[in-house]
């Protein structure tokens, strides 16, 4: 348990938090990169997924996309963007992470819009709604739970994966872990691991609360529910 004490003392040292490239610096960088990546993925994935789901086309495409994306190692994508003319740094990391966040957002949005009861759409049309109104006022509220599942999966995945940027000279909290390994300082490694894991779990909890808050109708907490469907349809692996 000596190691745990080392990790705790690392975390208790205010200098480790406030110094340049300390926990606060790296944490802010980590969150900034993650936020931009998720927002970019949402900006592309939600409209495309909504349109595909609305017209009911492209199901095979989205499922194939999410299946293939699972086979591509995150490390490979992070590295490949770092050796393009973009160069290694926050930009390359952000692009790679946005690409990784896209499949869960796209797939879940598609499944959410596709799964809207056709009768509801018919009723909305019969009430005189135009195509856009049907999309935004009838289908969107019903698709929100799955859409938010996609965003949550993507966000947790991105926050977790941003750690790997440190392996290819990127920033973020992963740097504490890689530096610790390089210096054989396992106390720092453990401290970094605790920080990164806590951040990922916090993201999950925060977004679960958010998706609960924006879901209309009878509310169910998304945690701890027994899911009986196969995972590949709606939920894409969140491991980094």
């Amino acid at each position, binding site marked *: 348990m000596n190691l745990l004490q080392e990790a705790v003392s690392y975390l208790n040292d205010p200098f480790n938090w406030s110094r340049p490239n300390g926990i606060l610096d790296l944490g802010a960088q980590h969150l900034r990169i993650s936020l931009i990546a998720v927002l970019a993925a949402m900006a592309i994935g939600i409209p495309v997924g909504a349109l595909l789901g609305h017209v009911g086309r492209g199901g095979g495409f989205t499922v194939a996309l999410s299946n293939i994306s699972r086979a591509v190692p995150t490390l490979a994508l992070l590295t490949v963007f770092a050796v393009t003319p973009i160069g290694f740094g926050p930009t390359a990391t952000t692009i790679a992470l946005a690409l990784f966040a896209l499949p869960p957002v796209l797939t879940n949005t598609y499944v959410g819009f596709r799964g809207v009861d056709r009768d509801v759409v018919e009723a909305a049309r019969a009430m005189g709604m135009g195509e856009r109104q049907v999309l935004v006022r009838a289908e969107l509220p019903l698709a929100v739970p799955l859409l938010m599942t996609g965003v949550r999966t993507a966000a947790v995945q991105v926050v977790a994966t941003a750690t790997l940027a440190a392996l290819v000279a990127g920033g973020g909290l992963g740097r504490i872990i890689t530096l610790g390994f390089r210096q054989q300082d396992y106390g720092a490694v453990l401290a970094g691991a605790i920080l990164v894991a806590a951040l990922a779990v916090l993201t999950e909890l925060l977004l679960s609360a958010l998706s609960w808050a924006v879901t209309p109708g009878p509310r169910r907490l998304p945690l701890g529910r027994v899911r009986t469907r196969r995972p*590949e349809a709606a939920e894409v692996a969140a491991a980094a």
Partner: protein
Amino acid sequence: MLSAGGTVLAADAAPNPWFDPSYVSDNWDTILSYLGEHVRLTVAAVVLGALIALPLALVARRNRWLAAPVLALSTLVYTIPSLAMFAFVAPVTGLSATTVLVGLVLYSLVILVRNFLAGLQSVPPDVQEAARGMGYGPGRLFWQVELPLALPSFMAGIRVATVSTVALVTVGVIVGHGGLGQLITGGFNANFYRAQIVTGALGCVLLALVADLLLAGAERALTPWARRARS
């Protein structure tokens, strides 16, 4: 460099192709040994994960109150970033392949428990009742009735676990046992040698696709009745 004066120096123009067949043929033995490590880690992680996940799923099904905590715990484990997972394990097992294996088993275990449980829960109670009525004991009930019915869900879980494990092995570079991931970071550290990076990355993707195809074939072979019903 100093005398460049706007012209491109030979050193700057050194070719750095995205893919180079001669790199693959020159380093075939190295690539094969990393590939071997990658395959060994993946197979071991999925097999061990399945061996642990099956009893867990069986227990969680029998005691309904256990199902929610098991699933919540698996969500929690799944949320932990892989680099952090290896960092948690590394102080105990050191810079060895065991560190990578323990982390990978935990991830595959988490995927498999969910799918195994979903598969077992999808067996219709009527079928279980009928089998019990025909005198099936718990062992025979599992092997001859429940397992075949839950097999599609089991295989779906094993396929997802295998494909994500192949991708996850690469993170093992942090302790020097990342299989083909070693090529990716190796190329990155060797002055951004693209051919090496792309070879490692392509190798991972191809390995994942081949593994998925093999498992899909195994699923077809194991469930001949599903094929007959479809055609």
